């Protein structure tokens, strides 16, 4: 259950990018950006400034992942008293609802991207 909630938050939580962007965007986008920068650095090497940028991107990503993990843990603890079937239905319903809303509405910015605002799939593409 915690893992499902964690995945949902990574995928959909409108996390504000603190530096080098103008969030909110899913934490997974933050990971994309960090991976893209890492790929450039792995190919081309890095100046001090680029290393700093890379550090900021990974710092933000890890922070977002950490917060998502804590929130997922808290939520799963909150519903742990419910019956297994109820819990499962609640979580599945929540996942479907959040995914539906995030897919349909342009609730995200796409920091460092080509669009001003995006829905979930545009933000992750």
């Amino acid at each position, binding site marked *: 259950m915690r893992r499902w909630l964690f995945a949902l938050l990574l995928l959909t939580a409108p996390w504000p990018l603190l530096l080098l962007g103008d969030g909110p965007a899913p934490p997974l986008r933050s990971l994309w*950006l960090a991976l*893209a*920068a890492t790929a450039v650095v792995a190919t081309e090497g890095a*100046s*001090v*400034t680029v290393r700093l940028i890379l550090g900021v991107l990974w710092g933000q990503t890890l922070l977002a992942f950490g917060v998502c993990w804590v929130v997922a843990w808290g939520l799963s603890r909150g519903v742990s008293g419910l019956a297994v079937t109820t819990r499962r239905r609640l979580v599945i319903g929540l996942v479907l609802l959040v995914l539906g809303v995030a897919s349909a509405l342009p609730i995200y910015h796409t920091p460092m991207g*080509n669009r001003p605002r995006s829905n979930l799939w545009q933000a992750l593409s």
Partner: protein
Amino acid sequence: MRCALALGLTLCALAWSATALERTEAREDCSAHDPLRQPFFGDTHVHTGFSFDAWGQGTLPGPDEAYRFAKGEPIGLPPWSDGRPGDSVALRRPLDWAIVTDHSDLLGETRICQTPGAPGYGSIVCRVVRHFPGLGYVLVNGHVYASESPRRYSFCGEGGRQCLEAARGPWRETRRAAEAHYDRSAACRFTTFVGYEWTGMPGGRNLHRNVVFRNEVAQEAPTTYIETPTPEGLWQALERECLAGAPRCDVLAIPHNSNVSGGLMFAAARSGGAPLDEGTARTRARLERLVEITQHKGDSECGVGAGDELCSYETLPFEIMSEMATPRAWGEPIPEGSYVRDALVDGLALGEKLGVNPFRFGLIGSTDTHLATPGMVDEDRHIGHAAGLVNARHGIPPFPDAPFFNPGGLAVLWAEENSRDALFEAMHRREAYGTSGPRIRVRFFGGFELPQDLCGAPDFAARGYAAGVPMGGVLRAPATASPLRFAVWALRDPDRGDAPSTPLQRIQIVKGWLEDGETRVRVLDVAGRADPTAGVDLATCRPHGPGADQLCAVWEDPEHDPTRPAVYYARVVENPSCRWSQYVCNRHGVDCTAAGGTPAVLEPCCDPELARTIQERAWTSPIWVDPR
């Protein structure tokens, strides 16, 4: 007798100026040719979609569109969708001339990343730049400009050959656009120059120069910071590839943003730290005849704390370019050493020591637009510059720029006609001035025989030329004691199209000199005065109170010591008017006291440290007085 004298002076001035213009190109003579010269308003600093940082922030128009805009046509603005702009803008008044100066660095990389099928198009760097333009922007700038040892990306191939080869395309197009938009007919409506920006930035310290060629003869390829990482290297390349290497080639380099050079721009040292020598000083004095005193990224005249209340005009809260994203608090004093006024006075001392003054700069303003919008300087219509902190890719934001930036200024050249040769010679002899945007007219003469009754004289200019030197000139103190006089005349911006201009407040003369080996500066009001009842209504931005349409003075320096070098320039100041940010805040009806607060994008409107008003101005090029 007096008439005969006046006629003689006029003829003398005409004869003097007629010999000054040398044609280096085939073109029709201009029908509007005035040997006593006219002011031509232009912009020496324009980036288009050919510059990586402009394209990376969503600018698509190229040099052709930039020149059309300068001539008065509208230009498209972001957001762009399938080649169609989301908005457009046009100048209120066209410019007389402009120079597209895209960054020579990354010219090839930008073209490769834009062109499907080009070798390197599929590289990881180009993919990141296209897919995550904001990330690409910071990574590439960090890789090239903020590095002590900049180098090309691997997709450029061995020795960067592929990118250098790819850069030939945009360079050819830049030269072609300059030719296509240059009016070689007798109408002389518009002049262009071939140019580029050398973007040196060791350790984030701005050493940028715009390079301007006199006519269509230019370098085969522009010099780049990556291959030529020092100003000395740039000067050598210009001498080798232009001055000595190509017939009819002539060139100038114009430094800018010394305010964010961390003191490097005007250091009395060569790159690497060796002391400045006579040869280097002579080369610099030959090639660097002008300096940008104001532009989008701040004012470079003088810093806060220079003992001159007007120095607080558009100063930046950081001292090196790479600190742009982490500015200090407003009003915090910035260390001296990066400002033009300091350089002008330090140059006197260097001139005594080396026998040549490397900092004999004329003064101009320009925009540094990255939206391909030369001359877009109106405070009430500021659209930002898409350069650095505010991303215009998704459209011009409601608060269009970082609060400490400004719309930039204009370069004005006193020339016989609107042709390349006439304008270039004006740049070369420094008969130029800068404005913070308004089209103020200023004339400035100095001489030991200047008559005291010049103000109001119909032959002000003829007598000024005949009895002295214009702005940018050099006087030598005569053997006999003679009064050193300066004549300065300024005319308020006569017309701003659909918006009223602001009256003039005063003219000041800024004097710098050496005394017992120490540099000294004094600022004197010579015409008009600062009337505290003159101001501006912040709610409507309408100016009120007394001011002048025209000011003039003949000022004699009673303290001039003919045994010491000195430098003098004039500063013409308007009454207070609304800063661009105030127009933005008014347009959006921001009320900082309202319940519910202010939208985040307009929060700068409620920053108590943000200046509400400015005093627009013009700075003339100096007149130097060499000792007897």
